[in-house]
């Protein structure tokens, strides 16, 4: 749906997901442990997240403290291992702190979309008929926008701010998640054993809770991991345009924007925040790919 959204899983292999027994998950785990690339980038991601959480403990300096005499120092400058930015603030500390807002703004929209989109998709798929039409055709309208444009349209109209950026990105990710949830729910609803459960008197809520969710959740979780990588790029992109965080907050996209003019003075320092965005997004993508292939027992 977007500039870069990965294709949604169109169908689930029911026979496989039904086998979601403890045995299935231990097989998935052992397959994951053998996948070195996924493990490595999972570890990188863990480090980035830990770094952001424990920023006050790790960061060597105050990320807000400017210094007129130490502006745009190069990497390796004494006391500033990754140099300083255009107002003399310590880059290493700002990169460490920057992960907090960048990860928050990247992950939260996908979590919002997971709940809202998942709910809408399950409702549309389970009830079918007019409700399905109403929900899914509304989703189609949002599919008519390239995701970057949709995010910028909403946050541009609402104005700059972290909350508005998160809101606009949530809107971007609800339709694709709803579509996946709807497809799977429709498939599960028509299975023989679900019909049998209904015939034996199980309530709709019980069927959704036990049979539908167990199939939907796994699929949309894996899909959501890959959406997070897009979300991180877009969230930092909004900040890069000045639509997300405001100065002097440390946030990777905003830092990149502030250092745009500095590429003529100190290009390596100016490019650093982008390296962090790239690394985070890449890790989420590879982790999602690894999870997907580990969960697909056919290969």
């Amino acid at each position, binding site marked *: 749906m977007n*500039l870069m959204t990965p294709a949604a899983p169109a169908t689930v292999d029911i026979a496989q997901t039904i086998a979601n027994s403890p045995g299935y998950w231990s097989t998935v785990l052992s397959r994951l442990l053998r996948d070195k690339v996924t493990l490595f980038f999972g570890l990188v991601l863990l480090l980035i997240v830990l770094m952001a959480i424990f920023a006050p403990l790790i960061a060597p300096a105050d990320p807000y403290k400017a210094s007129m005499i130490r502006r745009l120092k190069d990497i390796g400058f004494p006391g500033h291992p990754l140099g300083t930015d255009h107002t003399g603030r310590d880059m290493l500390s700002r990169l460490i702190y920057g992960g907090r807002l960048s990860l928050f703004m990247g992950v939260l929209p996908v979590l919002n979309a997971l709940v809202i989109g998942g709910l809408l998709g399950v409702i549309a798929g389970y009830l079918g008929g007019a409700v399905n039409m109403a929900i899914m055709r509304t989703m189609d*309208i949002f599919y008519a926008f390239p995701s970057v*444009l949709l995010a*910028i349209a909403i946050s541009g*109209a*609402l104005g700059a701010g972290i909350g508005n950026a998160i809101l606009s990105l949530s809107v971007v990710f609800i339709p694709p998640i709803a579509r996946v949830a709807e497809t799977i729910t429709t498939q599960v609803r028509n299975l023989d054993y679900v019909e049998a459960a209904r015939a034996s008197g199980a309530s709709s809520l019980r069927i959704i809770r036990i049979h539908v969710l167990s199939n939907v959740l796994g699929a949309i979780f894996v899909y959501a991991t890959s959406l997070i*990588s897009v979300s991180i790029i877009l969230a930092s*992109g909004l900040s890069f345009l000045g639509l997300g965080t405001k100065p002097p907050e440390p946030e990777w996209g905003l830092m990149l924007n502030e250092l745009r003019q500095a590429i003529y003075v100190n290009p390596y320092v100016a490019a650093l925040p982008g390296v962090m965005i790239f690394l985070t997004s890449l890790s989420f993508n590879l982790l999602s790919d690894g999870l997907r292939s580990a969960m697909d027992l056919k290969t």
Partner: protein
Amino acid sequence: MLRYILIRLLYTIPIALGVTIFVFALIHLSGDPLNAVVAPDATAEMVAKLRAAYGFDKPLPVQYLIWLGKALQGDLGNSIVNSRPVLDTLLAAVPNTLMLAIFATMIGFAFGCLLGGLAGYYQGSIIDKLATGFGIAGVSVPHYWLGMVLVIVFAVNLQWLPATGMGAGGSDAWKWDWEHIRFLILPAVTLSVIPCGIITRTVRSTVAEILSQEFVQALRAKGLLHGQVMRHVARNAAPTVLAVMGLQLGYLLGGSILVETVFNWPGTGYLLNDAIFRRDIPMLQGTILLLAMFFVALNLAVDILQTWVDPRMRRS
């Protein structure tokens, strides 16, 4: 076929209408749309006068219909900043974005097909691993950052290509000569990375899937040469790849705002960015409406073309 096209067209109408409703609603998202035009010290009488002049005193559905009627006739209103018709400003910027997006799609297509084709053919080889890695990196890279890196390398360090703009001295008069094409290279390459990654992945999986089918074995058994077999594979992969490419062009048209901002490229994205920061709501609305409609039309065209090339794709 004609019937299919008509059905597809009919299906597009509600979506197009939905898009116009969404774009119309944008103006009311940020609260009272008058805030952008009224001076903070305006009297209540002046505010009421302006409200009537802009038509904001009418009920919302009426406002929507009036706005839609005007938009259908090509009247997207006037810019708040310079009072010029939005459509005129937009039409001047569209060719620049179109040029950038088409160029980027072409680069992405050429590299993606080459890399993906080789990867699909030599599955498991080094080329395959490189192409797969490149595909993932292509969709993971923040392209606004990549643009900055390319500027650092090719404009600042090597000084081969200009850093920003689309002509010497900030001029935006375009000509197809080297003096101007030089300005197009860096933004187009930056923008091409995403379609390149996606097309690489698509071509790889499509080629791999086709090669595993029985008809390829039959062709080989028949004694066809390597190149002849590949021609069959290419013909079978073409519809999928073309469809992906068409959609990518649409994404690039709408998504070039970040790259246009990095390179000061005077296209629609640049207009949009400017409109957001001057709170020029008619300009914002007009640009988004045009880009979204373009995307809807492109989707339709891709669908119809795809069915025309391969009738098996026809949707019920």
